[in-house]
């Protein structure tokens, strides 16, 4: 993907830049709001990562508002040290698509960037079914089959699986699952998400020869179709 990174702190910038490049992305960078806005308007990106507080009079929200004012709908991920709920709401209301608070784990940022990039591609056509490898989900009848065999899932388990399938091949973090599947925005101290994923595995992976839901150490989970 072609990504624009606007971040003024050189350490954070080079850290994110290096990580994104290693993940195979093509990254342009800017260290102030003016250059960032110039690039964001002039070039075509799959996703823009914006720091909220930038030097030079133009901050992240200004850039975001200008882009949205020009009907530019490039997905924007806001990066900020402001973590209060209201700040997050401000950012999303201004047209941001996701919000990551500093300090962050790179795996979290990468997972969210890839999820956003994916969303930009296939949001056009409403689907009625999803298929990954031998797993298929019927979104209307809420029926799940794997290799022709029907799997019974609770409503929440279905939503969890649907989210994983929609992001098949990408890492999804525990926080992402909590936010997107449960719509919760707090940090649980216990391993609630792990437990739910492990229950889902009991139904989706255990009866079959190969597992499709994998744990990624220090990051989260990935649903990877069986290679056959």
């Amino acid at each position: 993907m072609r990504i624009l990174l606007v971040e003024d702190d050189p350490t954070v910038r080079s850290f994110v830049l290096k990580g994104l490049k290693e993940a195979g992305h093509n990254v342009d960078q800017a260290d102030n709001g003016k250059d960032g806005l110039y690039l964001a308007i002039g070039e075509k990106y799959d996703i823009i990562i914006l720091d909220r507080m930038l030097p030079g009079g133009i901050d992240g929200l200004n850039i975001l508002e200008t882009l949205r004012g020009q009907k530019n709908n490039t997905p924007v991920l806001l990066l900020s040290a402001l973590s209060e709920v209201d700040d997050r709401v401000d950012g999303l209301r201004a047209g941001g698509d996701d919000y990551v608070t500093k300090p962050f784990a790179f795996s979290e940022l990468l997972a969210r960037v890839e999820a956003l990039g994916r969303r930009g591609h296939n949001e056009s056509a409403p689907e009625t079914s999803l298929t990954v490898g031998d797993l298929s989900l019927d979104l209307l009848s809420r029926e799940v089959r794997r290799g022709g065999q029907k799997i019974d899932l609770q409503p929440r388990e279905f939503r969890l699986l649907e989210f994983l399938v929609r992001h098949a091949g990408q890492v999804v973090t525990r926080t992402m699952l909590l936010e997107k599947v449960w719509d919760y925005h707090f940090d649980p101290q216990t391993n609630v998400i792990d437990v739910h994923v492990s229950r889902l595995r009991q139904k989706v992976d255990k009866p079959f020869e190969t597992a499709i839901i994998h744990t990624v150490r220090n990051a989260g989970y990935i649903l990877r179709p069986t290679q056959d």
Partner: protein
Amino acid sequence: MAEDRPPSRRRFPPWRRKQGEGRRRHWPIRSAGINFALGYGVLFLISATLFLSFIWWSSTNLLNRHVRAFIETDAQELQKRWTYGGAPALGDAITDRLEQNIDDDALYLLTDRHGRRLAGNLPGWPVAIKRMDHFYELTIRRYTFTTPAEFKAYDLPHGFRLIVGHDIRGRTLLSTVITRTVIWCAVMIALLAVGGALVVRDLFRRMVGSIARTASAVASGDLNHRIALTGSETDLVAETVNTMLDRINRLMEGVRQVSNAIAHDLRTPITRARNQLEEALFSATSPEELRTAVDRAIGDLDHITGIFEALLRIAQIEAGSRRSAFTMMDLNQLLANMAELYEASAEEAGLNLHLDIVPLPPLFGDERMLQQALANLLDNAIKFSPPDSALTLRARPVPAIAPPGHSPSECSPAGLEISVQDQGPGMNDADILRAHERFFRAESARNTPGSGLGLSLVQAVTSLHHGRLTLTKANPGLKVTLFLPLTQDAEQTTRKAPLTEGPS
């Protein structure tokens, strides 16, 4: 040029001139006390003048009517004399009356058909009197002075004519007295107004002064200073300011507590991370060891970040700024979802999560904050429960105290109660009292992961909803109860809800 300006304009420095002119363009006095007293004086003067004018008007009216009635009665009397004895009898009667008139205010004139004076004390027929049976008010000359007088002329048979009059200099006297009274009143009122102005200004100054002194004391750092209540109207302001100062003081106390806690409780994980990194730097022999050390340090840093987040969130909630997100919300759905989320973890930990939920009415509150509070309670309960024990999530509406004659079920609930009960080690009484403090961890909990901020956050969220957090011993275990009042307009409920309650 500055010299051309009227003096009142020069009172204002250039940057304030516009504002000053806009507010009182033609009024140079800015002291509220003096303006108040002046206004009061002018008002008093106007009312005194009105009052005295009314007295003047009604008493002259009365006098006039009196004089006219007297004249008419007198004339009738005299005309009767004419009927009995003609001109001589009338002349005698007039002379008699003049002799008996001690006040010397009666005026008479009797003339024959040639206009000659037959009797009376008027020197001649006044030129102004032309019509009969009509009252005239004339100024006449008597002895050495002039005086106003009321006259009426009558035709008698055979061309004789009679004038009956009355000296009304009494009215002039009254007018003089009243005019003098008005002038003296004005002088006295002016004096009283000026004196009052000074007194009122002083009063105002003293009232405001006490508030100003307190404010400046607070501004210079003495937060314990309070405005003395005097029982006057400024008490309203004083009380509000005092309440505000109390709140500021509490917030400052909170900030102080937090900074102490940060100093103490954040240093520990930071030190640990630092030591690990240092140790690895000097003594790690393989990349594996180095990687493990860095990994652990990152874990410690994440823990520190978590503490920061929690502290900031608590501070933000306690500052009361989060009320903007309040909506009418359905707690039943929230409880069902939370139960569903945590039921799995409870089962994983070998615990049995019992639900005992009576349907709740909608509540005016912050959904995310209540989610977070409930999550903290369930996290805690799961963390401290021994395997194979039970965990109960209860929720029920709390009825208001029923008025006599009504059963409690008839009136709408006063609030609702949500509780989480475990069968863990519980807490002793001393720990329960301290449980809501930031970073407090009971001795028995030292070895479990956690920051000691979970209950502080629950406490803050409860206070935000004007509710009450209660910890009770469940023997075995601990029961944590949130009471949330159901007031529609939460602003009206008391803001000073007790922050914590011990075992009840």
